[in-house]
């Protein structure tokens, strides 16, 4: 398969001896010169989805340090000159490369000859086209690992699985969104991206989504513990007083308790009131059911009063325990659990950014 920009108004796609000609929308034609093969290799293309169908004018420039490094483009805008970016040369260039790469990615099924680009470009998707060099990434995977929090916090998710309907509707595209400023995520673990970008938004069962989210909580708990441990090791190398060393070791031992590690994850100032409320809602529902077993909760309640900031973390810990060990007590609370997943996920994504 070979793609040729021979014509000014069409993509000629060579498959063996045959040539399939796909017309290029008028507005893209003048940018063909820029969309050379070299430029094409510099760019990456990722399919994205949003809650609700994309609107043609929802074209979102991607910025790094004030420079445009790419665009998120609704499928409908790729083949149209009705939108606000139709006269923008930089957009035209990126859009043309995006079309080229879409043609490459479908690897032309010659048996079903498309008669126009509309046949191969999905209007239900966004297409993210970005310059690899400017983004300082080498592949689509690396781009997503680096920038998925910024995409997700602006309502964009994995667009690969077209059959999945959104279930949890984590976040919608903000109505005033004019661009996305990309900055590299601080979490390099690919499974975190996988959980948030590809699994949780599509999961219909909030309890299963909670399970995914809790893996990420555990990941942050581990990171907190590792930070504490490395601080202790550093101190161990420098500490001369055995008494002080012992005290430091006690603090590490204390921190290693699950509850304390969870607290560390949720003491972040970014913890918003929405998450706080959602945790309280679920907690109050299940704790009311368990009033008769108050003794079992006393420790939790005592601790909860120690420090207000810690309350949501401890409540969440309690919800987690109920979820994993007494699921029947929580399974009727699907709606509040769904709300909690949404705010919990957004909080954790913010922590990744």
């Amino acid at each position, binding site marked *: 398969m070979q793609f040729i920009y021979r014509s000014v108004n069409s993509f000629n796609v060579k498959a063996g001896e*045959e040539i399939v000609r796909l017309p290029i929308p008028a507005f893209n034609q003048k940018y063909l010169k820029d969309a050379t093969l070299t430029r094409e290799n510099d760019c990456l293309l990722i399919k994205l989805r949003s809650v609700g169908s994309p609107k*043609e*004018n929802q074209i979102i420039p991607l910025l790094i340090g004030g420079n445009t490094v790419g665009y998120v483009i609704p499928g409908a805008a790729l083949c149209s000159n*009705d939108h*606000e970016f139709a*006269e923008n040369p930089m957009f035209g260039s990126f859009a043309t490369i995006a079309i080229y790469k879409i043609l490459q990615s479908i690897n032309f099924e010659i*048996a079903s*000859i498309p008669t126009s680009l509309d046949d191969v470009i999905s209007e239900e998707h966004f297409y993210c086209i970005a310059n690899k060099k400017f983004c300082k990434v080498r592949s689509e995977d690396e781009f997503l690992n680096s920038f998925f929090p910024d995409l997700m916090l602006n309502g964009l998710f994995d667009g690969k699985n077209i059959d999945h309907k959104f279930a949890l509707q984590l976040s919608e595209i903000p109505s005033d969104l004019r661009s996305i400023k990309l900055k590299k995520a601080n979490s390099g673990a690919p499974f975190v991206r996988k959980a948030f970008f590809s699994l949780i938004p599509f999961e219909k069962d909030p309890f299963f989504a909670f399970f995914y989210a809790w893996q990420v909580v555990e990941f942050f708990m581990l990171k907190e513990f590792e930070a504490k441990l490395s601080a202790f090791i550093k101190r161990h190398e420098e500490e001369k007083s055995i008494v002080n060393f012992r005290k430091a070791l006690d603090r590490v031992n204390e921190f290693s308790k699950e509850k304390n590690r969870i607290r560390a994850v949720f003491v972040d100032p970014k913890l918003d009131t929405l998450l706080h409320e959602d945790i309280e809602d679920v907690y109050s529902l299940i704790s009311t059911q368990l009033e008769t077993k108050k003794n079992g909760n006393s420790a939790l309640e005592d601790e909860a009063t120690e420090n207000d900031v810690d309350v949501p973390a401890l409540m969440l810990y309690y919800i987690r325990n109920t979820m994993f060990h007494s699921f029947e007590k929580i399974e009727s609370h699907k709606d509040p659990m769904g709300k909690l997943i949404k705010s919990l996920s957004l909080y954790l994504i913010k922590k990744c950014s």
Partner: protein
Amino acid sequence: MPLNSLITLHIKKNMEIKSTLPDRVVQGTSFLLEMSIGEYIAIAKVIIDRNEFQRRRVKSSKTTYSLLRRDIERGCVLPPLVLAHRDTAPGNVATITDLLKSNPDQFIILDGLQRSFTLIDISNEIDGNELEDFLGRGLRCEIYDGVNRAGILYRMLTLNTGQTTMSLRHQIEIMYLDYLTKEVEGVRLIREVDDASVNKLNEYNFREMIEGFNSYIDRNELPMDRADVLDNISSLENLSTENNDADLFAKFLKTWHSFILAIDQLNIEAEKDPDTYHDNLFEAHDEDSKNSFVWGGTGVRIFKRPQAVSGFGAAIGMLRDESEFEDFSNIHMNFEVGAEPHIFILAFNEAIQNINKNARKIGNAQRLFFRMYFKMLFMKDSTSYKNLYKSISLAQNGAERLGI
């Protein structure tokens, strides 16, 4: 002997009419002819060369036309190729064969264009005895004569069921290409490839008018890019109910032009008062303006757009189905603006901007808006009947309700 001489030799042989049958649906005559491949190639070449809108060849799969080509070379019998005589004056047995020889440019290929390309290809690539044998072989050709445009179009739709169907718009373009050379009551059609721009009031873009007409016969304002012609039963039904004697396209063209003339006579223009109006509105009013995001600063500019023509076509088609009028001549073009001209222009631009902001596909949403607008404008029971200003909000609500 060179190819052209060989073909000429074959033309001299008499083609034979084997059967003549009346087609009662399209009210014409169908002739079945036998002729040599050489004769057919001579005719097909003229048709393809002279008719710039005749579809180009499809270079596609190994499994379709290249297989066909191999079969032809091995001597298979081709299914009859179908041609139509574009002049509606009925021919007869004697004249149709004469016409084929003397004026092949009066014919169009309804079905079998890709087969014709294959035949021409083969004749170009072989020579000597092999070529002579090939050109002398027989083929069957069916010719429709005395059929009006709607009838030919109807036949095109029902016949063109092969591997690569033409789009409905393309078929209509072929049908109406002679309007490019003649004026209909002062209306001039301009083709994009002519490098001419549409500047005068009586000038319209050929393709845009074709799209508008397409929307009329299909009762649908959307462009036909994706539509499968064969699935489009409704358009066939619509066509079959039209008066077969009518030249619908000319009537459609005249009706749209009379609408534009009526709007022009109302002198709707925005006042240049920067305190009251948005600057962009006046930029769009300027001939050289590059701001394409404001719809229009005058009445004519607002309506002389492809989306408006398509919406008009679809709305008029629907109203006709609802028996709002019997014929294009029953549509009366007397309107009231319904507000101060600048208020009307401002409201119209705001409506379009609102559509643009929220549309999943802006072009389609604008077409839907115009369909609703013209329905409100021309429907006698509408509260905004003949009122240009009142129809705006009703159209916008309607379009949003239907989903843009």
